């Protein structure tokens, strides 16, 4: 026996003797044979000792039960999911949060395989994780998707450790669905920012080169103009040297032509800069979304363009157009640009037919299409380039404009959180699709 155990026994003996002497006095034991008396006393002391031990055991048992109940509460109501899994992944035990995470009554979990509650695609990964855990690899973690449909599916982060007996493992499951959604949003935002950045770089390159192009003309023809001015001045000072009427040629055609080139290039720069300003203004534009009656919006545009449409002999077919929520003025600009392009790039060999239609998708998103039977954009490359600033499908002067209409339309749609796309139309021509996301309401 250890010394303290020994001491405990001695103390118990002393306490038992005290209690017994109290009892004996109270009972007033009669005097009898000394041996029998001593034996009896010994036995009585043992009896009391046993009673006291019994009392202590009862107390200890009550304490243990209280502690067990506390731990059971902690286990059952913990904010994390706890599971005990067998080697085959069968659930031996689970807490309430664990059952909630798997969208199942706790009673229905026992004996079922954990994998049965997961999305099938993630099963191999989960099985490999379980194998690692039972191979006693320390601190194993794994992310799994539960089998719930749509929004009910959760992403769980599992952390497991092998139990001491080696036949089961304990798994802690945390719901990281929201965290994952945030991560995905962040990734999407990041990708969007990167794309915007590239677009911005492109924009800078394009605009600086487009602006440089007329400048090359201005400086180039100024160079020739000053050279020809000097030549004219010299000829004027010594008319005798001008045998072949060079002065007349310089003043009558060469120099005026150079001046024409310079002023045409200056006008081109002016037009490029006004296009740039129109795009720049969009950057600071605050959209004013409101419910838009699309049919009256398109009607309005067609009335404004009626003269030009008639002149071109165009036919416009309008289907049923669902309403949407958007900035009315900007949306008018987008559809004016599309109709304007259909007119500008029509096929001269056939009658222009423009079809405008719309539909509401199941998601509530609204999409409209403007289809023409014009010259079309057959090459995929061309369909990408049309969105770039100052891109022209035809030589400058062949059609009026700055080449920013579609660039601006695309920016407007992006600001709405929508999209604008161009696809080849069956039978030639182009289909422009304008999509607006669902904005609640009706």
């Amino acid at each position, binding site marked *: 026996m250890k010394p303290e155990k020994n001491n405990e026994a001695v103390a118990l003996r002393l306490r038992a003797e005290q209690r017994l002497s109290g009892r004996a006095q109270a009972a007033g034991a009669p005097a009898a044979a000394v041996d029998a008396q001593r034996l009896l006393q010994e036995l009585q002391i043992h009896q009391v000792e046993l009673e006291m031990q019994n009392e202590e055991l009862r107390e200890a048992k009550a304490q243990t039960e209280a502690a067990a109940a506390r731990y059971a509460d902690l286990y059952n109501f913990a904010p994390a999911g706890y599971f005990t899994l067998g080697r085959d992944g069968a659930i031996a035990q689970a807490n309430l949060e664990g059952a909630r995470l798997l969208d199942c009554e706790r009673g229905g979990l026992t004996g079922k395989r954990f994998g049965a509650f997961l999305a099938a695609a993630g099963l191999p990964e989960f099985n490999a994780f379980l194998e690692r855990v039972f191979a006693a690899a320390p601190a194993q973690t794994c992310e799994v998707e539960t089998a719930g449909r749509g929004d009910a599916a959760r992403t769980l982060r599992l952390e497991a450790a092998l139990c001491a007996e080696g036949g089961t493992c304990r798994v802690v499951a945390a719901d990281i669905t929201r965290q994952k959604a945030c991560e995905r949003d962040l990734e999407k935002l990041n990708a969007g920012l990167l794309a915007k950045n590239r677009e911005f770089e492109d924009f800078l*390159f394009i605009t600086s*080169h*487009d602006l*440089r*192009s*007329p*400048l*090359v*003309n201005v*400086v*180039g*023809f*100024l*160079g*020739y103009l000053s050279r020809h001015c000097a030549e004219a001045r010299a000829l004027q000072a010594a008319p005798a040297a001008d045998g072949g009427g060079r002065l007349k040629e310089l003043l009558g055609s060469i120099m005026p032509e150079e001046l024409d*080139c310079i002023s*045409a*290039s200056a006008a081109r720069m002016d037009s490029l800069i006004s296009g740039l300003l129109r795009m720049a203004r969009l950057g600071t534009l605050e959209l004013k979304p409101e419910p838009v009656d699309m049919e009256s919006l398109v009607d309005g545009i067609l009335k404004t363009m009626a003269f030009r449409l008639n002149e071109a002999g165009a036919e416009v077919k309008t289907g049923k157009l669902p309403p949407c929520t958007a900035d009315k003025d900007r949306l008018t600009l987008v559809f004016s640009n599309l109709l304007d392009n259909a007119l500008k790039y029509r096929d001269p060999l056939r009658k222009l037919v423009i079809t405008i239609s719309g539909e509401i998708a199941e998601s509530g998103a609204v999409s409209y299409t403007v289809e023409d039977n014009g010259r079309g954009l057959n090459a995929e*490359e*061309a369909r990408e*380039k049309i969105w770039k600033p100052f*891109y*022209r*499908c*035809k*030589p*400058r002067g062949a059609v009026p404009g700055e080449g920013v209409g579609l660039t601006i339309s695309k920016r407007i749609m992006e600001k709405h959180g929508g999209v604008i796309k161009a696809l080849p139309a069956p039978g030639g021509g182009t289909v422009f699709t304008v999509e607006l996301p669902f904005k609640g309401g009706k």
Partner: protein
Amino acid sequence: MAEENNEMPITILIAEDDDGHARLIQEHLKDAGVHNPIHRLRDGEETLAFLEKSGKDKDHKYLLLLDIKMPGIDGIQVLKKLKADERLKTLPVIMVTTTDDPRDIEACYRAGCSNYLVKPVGFTAFAEMITRLGLFILIIKVPKV
């Protein structure tokens, strides 16, 4: 000069949508002493159509000065189409363009252009660039197609 060896002189093709630029290149070429015949093409489509018809003519030798930024089919697309054509791929192509976007320059060299020149804004710099181009034209050997 090109006429020395009794052969047809190289015809310089200028594929350029900007009238001013086309004229400046022609004037500067004249100033640099290049007197080869010059033929102006207004855009990518016209350039491809011309070369399809005349570029395979055995008696003619051509050198193409090609601008990148043209409406419709741009210079890079023209260059790629030429290099993909068995009989036109030996035609020397010099990009003469305002674009100094490194991505464009790389795309042109990768597509197989012979040279890449950026049109400078300055009058003298432009003249110098064309003079260099003139020297290049004088020494270049154009293989028979």
